[in-house]
């Protein structure tokens, strides 16, 4: 069973959408697996000024996506990289044990978005 918080985040997700001029974009999953998460970031002075997501997937994929964007927004890149799967799950009030497969996908997408940003700004 899903926690009240999971259902609340799933039914009223925050930060849904695309950042057209994103500084970094990270995507994970595939249509074969059935979950695809894309995270967009806008960075200002090393701080994640804006974080948005687009997700095709189950309740966990969507609720972790919205939670990751909320946890990451306003943090420095280093702080955001320190976010763990446990932080996300705790913020959601827990997840069913058999649903842990999708719980880390959103964080992976965030990390990829940061990697993309760093790749672009490496020079």
């Amino acid at each position: 069973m899903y926690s009240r918080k999971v259902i609340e985040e799933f039914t009223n997700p925050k930060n849904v959408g695309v950042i057209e001029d994103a500084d970094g974009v990270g995507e994970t999953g595939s249509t074969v697996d059935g979950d695809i998460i894309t995270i967009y970031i806008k960075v200002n002075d090393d701080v994640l000024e804006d974080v948005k997501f687009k997700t095709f997937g189950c309740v966990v994929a969507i609720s972790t996506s919205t939670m990751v964007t909320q946890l990451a927004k306003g943090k420095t890149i280093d702080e955001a990289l320190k976010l763990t799967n446990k932080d996300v799950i705790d913020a959601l009030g827990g997840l069913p044990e058999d649903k842990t497969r999708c719980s880390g996908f959103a964080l992976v997408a965030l990390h990829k978005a940061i990697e993309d940003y760093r790749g672009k700004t490496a020079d």
Partner: protein
Amino acid sequence: MKRIYMDHSATTPVDPLVVDSMLPYFTEKFGNASSLHSFGQEASEALSTARQQLAESIGAKTDEIIFTSGGTESDNLAIRGVLEKKNSGKGKDQHIITSLIEHPAVLSTCSFLESIGYDVTYVPVDSEGILDMDEFENSIQDNTSIISIMHANNEIGTIQPIREISKIAKENDIYLHTDAVQTFGKIPVNVDDLGVDMLAISSHKIHGPKGAGALYVREGTDLEPFIFGGGHEQGLRPGTENIPGIVGLGKAASLAKERLGNDPEHMLKLRDSLISKIFDSIEDVQLNGHSEKRLPNNVNLSFKYAEGESLQMLLDVKGIAVSTASACSSKSKKESHVLTSIGVDTDYIHGTIRISLGKDNTMEEIDYVAQSLKESVDKLREMSAISKC
């Protein structure tokens, strides 16, 4: 918030008339049907009445009804019972024919039997879920002992040509079993018309209690029990009879037969209206299963760009209960073996829900469900990473 139940293929509410029929058998008439005293007699008489009710509802003789704990046990008894009986003379050199889209009660049984040395052929189906009759005929071998093909599929509602299958089974002198758990009470189920040797029924799918079911076994069909104990149910299903459950099953079967003219027709109207409303208002959706040879209460839909579990949960928040075809688990996103067998495209397969109607659903509910479904699909598509939005 009003709750709307549209998951009747999973289970049904017990009819109040069924509950009333069962109640005395918990408290006042609680005897063991094997006991000789008056308490036992009451139970024994109730057992006979239920057997009569069930037999009448499918055109069988009373001694052709074996009460079980439900559809799963009935399927197991049919398949394993035939093999065990034949096993005594032939060893495990026996062959079973089934289809790729059977319920796990049959598929898991066949898989187990394969693991202990039996040979199984899983016949494919076409894109609408109908058994490939050429493949079926070609799969028959000299050592084929049993054919087990479901009457209608629990996910997509496709009804199989059992009569045609039974002719071929008879020509080849092979027993035919059918899982009629989804059809009984929805379309006419008569064992002689169908020409089957065995037929499985479940009580809780027809507004009866859970934990009760039956296997029809045509006179002369040789079976061995796979549970051992006393000599109940002609020695085929030992164990003290679940009298309240069996009484409920008998009453539910009797009511289902009475209502066969009205309830399926009502569900058919609702079904077609729902399908029409959905296709009028939502793009990129497909109906899975056969357009005509289909259960009157089944609507199985796949939506592109919207995931099934999420769709189910958004509907649940609106008070609507439906089911999904795929289960997301810790190890993998398990796709429905039925949907993969009929070749549903990857873009659609994860976005599948099953809506199964019941006799008490209304047209007003259909309107609300169609509207809610549109809103939910739109919402998921707006946030989908693969949508065209």
